[in-house]
């Protein structure tokens, strides 16, 4: 850093373009939305900034609070699931032969090459009543019926008719969608920490008599904490604000706070309320990050995430 400061021209040449970009496309729109939250609608498109707090008061409507609670719950469940699925995946990649690692990582990143909208629609094709999962189940049902028919057991065991599972348009589908879309955000930081893990520590644990499971929980998980924390943040925050996935995969009762915000800006045409909601969401996110930083700070040297 010191040597950079000694060369101000070079320093600014590198910093300025990025700083301008952020100012123009991140800070400025954010400031606009922040202002809008204190505005009043005076016409179909005109908004006056009157510094009213009515929009913020409107956010704390019990209906919205309930939606907010559900969003937190859905995001939490989805994040825990991505962690539970992502950790073994990341571990497997870090132990894979060096030759295969780039290939497996490519497979993990591959879905990013397709637009999230298309990926989510693809999930519909998989989950709907006449989708691939139910086709598969129906095939198994037919096989079972055919096998059991000679014994006259087919109706008793398999039922008279194949009833497709209701996999779509509910909270489970939303959580499934979030896990599917955000899994790479969990796997990649986990892999980055696990790959750097000193293998001799694992050997030492085995040497001292611990089994693989004990080694996993006593050595690997604590040492992978920085990656786990990054992964949780990277998944939880977008999951909390998601509206596309809940819109396409969710039912009438799986509305999330993201959907409500989207509606304020579009269908309801209430930009000030939408802006206030966005900022409340932002403050909650900040609060969570602050708590995490505080916890890491208290633990001293360990929480270097």
């Amino acid at each position: 850093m010191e040597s950079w400061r000694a060369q101000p021209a070079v320093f600014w040449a590198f910093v300025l373009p990025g700083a301008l970009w952020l100012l123009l496309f991140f800070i400025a729109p954010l400031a606009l939305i922040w202002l809008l939250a204190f505005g009043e609608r005076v016409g179909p498109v005109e908004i006056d900034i009157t510094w009213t707090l009515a929009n913020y008061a409107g956010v704390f409507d019990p209906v919205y609070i309930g939606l907010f609670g559900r969003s937190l719950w859905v995001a939490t469940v989805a994040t825990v699931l991505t962690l539970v699925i992502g950790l073994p995946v990341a571990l497997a990649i870090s132990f894979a032969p060096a030759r295969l690692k780039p290939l497996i990582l490519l497979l993990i990143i591959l879905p990013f090459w397709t637009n999230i909208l298309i990926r989510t629609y693809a999930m519909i094709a998989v989950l709907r009543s006449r989708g691939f999962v139910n086709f598969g189940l129906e095939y198994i049902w037919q096989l079972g019926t055919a096998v059991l028919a000679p014994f006259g057991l087919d109706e008793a065991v398999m039922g008279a008719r194949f009833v497709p599972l209701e996999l779509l348009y509910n909270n489970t589908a939303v959580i499934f969608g979030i896990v599917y879309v955000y899994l790479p955000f969990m796997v990649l930081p986990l892999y980055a920490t696990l790959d750097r893990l000193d293998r001799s520590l694992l050997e030492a644990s085995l040497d001292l008599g611990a089994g693989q499971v004990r080694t996993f929980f006593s050595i690997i998980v604590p040492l992978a904490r920085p990656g786990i924390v990054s992964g949780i943040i990277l998944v939880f925050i977008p999951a909390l604000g998601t509206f596309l996935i809940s819109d396409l995969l969710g039912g009438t009762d799986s509305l999330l706070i993201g959907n409500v915000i989207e509606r304020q800006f579009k269908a309801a045409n209430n930009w000030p309320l939408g802006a206030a909601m966005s900022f409340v969401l932002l403050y909650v996110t900040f609060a969570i990050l602050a708590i995490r930083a505080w916890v890491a700070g208290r633990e001293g040297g360990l929480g270097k995430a």
Partner: protein
Amino acid sequence: MTETPAQTPIVTFENVTKSFGRTKAVDGVSLAIPRNAFFALLGPSGCGKTTLLRMLGGFEHPTSGRVLIDGEDMADVPPNRRQVNMVFQSYAVFPHMTVAENVAYGLKVTSVPRAEIGPRVEEAIAMVRLDGMAARKPDQLSGGQRQRVALARALVKRPKLLLLDEPLSALDKKLREEMQLELVRLQTEVGITFIIVTHDQEEALGMASDIAVMKEGRILQIAPPRQLYEHPTRRFVAEFIGASNSFECEVLGIEGGMARVRAPLLGELKVERAAADVRAGTLIVRPEKMRMDFSSPDPDPGEVLVRAVIDQIAYFGDLSIVYLTAEDGRRLQCSRYNVNRIDKGDPPPGTPCTIGIHPEDLLLVGD
């Protein structure tokens, strides 16, 4: 199978080879280590010492051959089921645990009664002189202190076999000497077999009951320290353990344990053969076994005399090493104890002198 347990070696390698791709890290090693030995593996970097230890720990599997511990084939026994503990070359101290937690880990994961853990951990920490540091994290310790945590962590398990991969390399000379004595004391007291890898030949000579010298994956010689130093069978061993002066020679005849040889500078002599299979090779003599005379040649009877010129004298406190060039251009070295405190003045480079060698101090070793 009629052997009693006390007679079966604790460790047996049967023609073990370990290849990594094209490199043979360990090449056809057969070896038996007796119970309660303090066994040292000595050899240059990359000769396969760590690989040999890792096969005992269960972290590498022989490409061919068998490894037995206590008479039991270890092929299918995972590391956590072996009564063997290892002090890793890289220490491998758990960074997220305190010193005490590190030491306690191996007891907690096995079925050691909770009440027993505390006292045993304390005892082990005291043993490696880390008392007062039990609550520290590894990043608050020096390299040598971390190494001692690794040692305590293995010792506290009271294994049948303790594997030490250069366990003292990060310690300063004084602490290293203390820990060497401590290890020897521990080994005799607790009666565990120790296998220690080291680069440091003095460490091996001073501590071990037996030493194996390795080169390029093979074991060249296994012997107790004194025999290894005084009776090396191969030129590599002689030059790796201590210093030696070598004279290539022509063997004229073999007479039992002796050989008649002709060597440049030394002429024709009768010398001891290092082993029964040594029929040709090199004559070696240790630097401290050569008599050096700066003034008039005053030969002992039977001594061979070599004339040389002093190149340089290196002073090491207790002794000095005199580097010389002999008549035929061969480089030699002699060592002398500095028995007088008053400096009598070393002769300057270029001073001619005479070296006296007793034929009984010469040994014919294989190449």
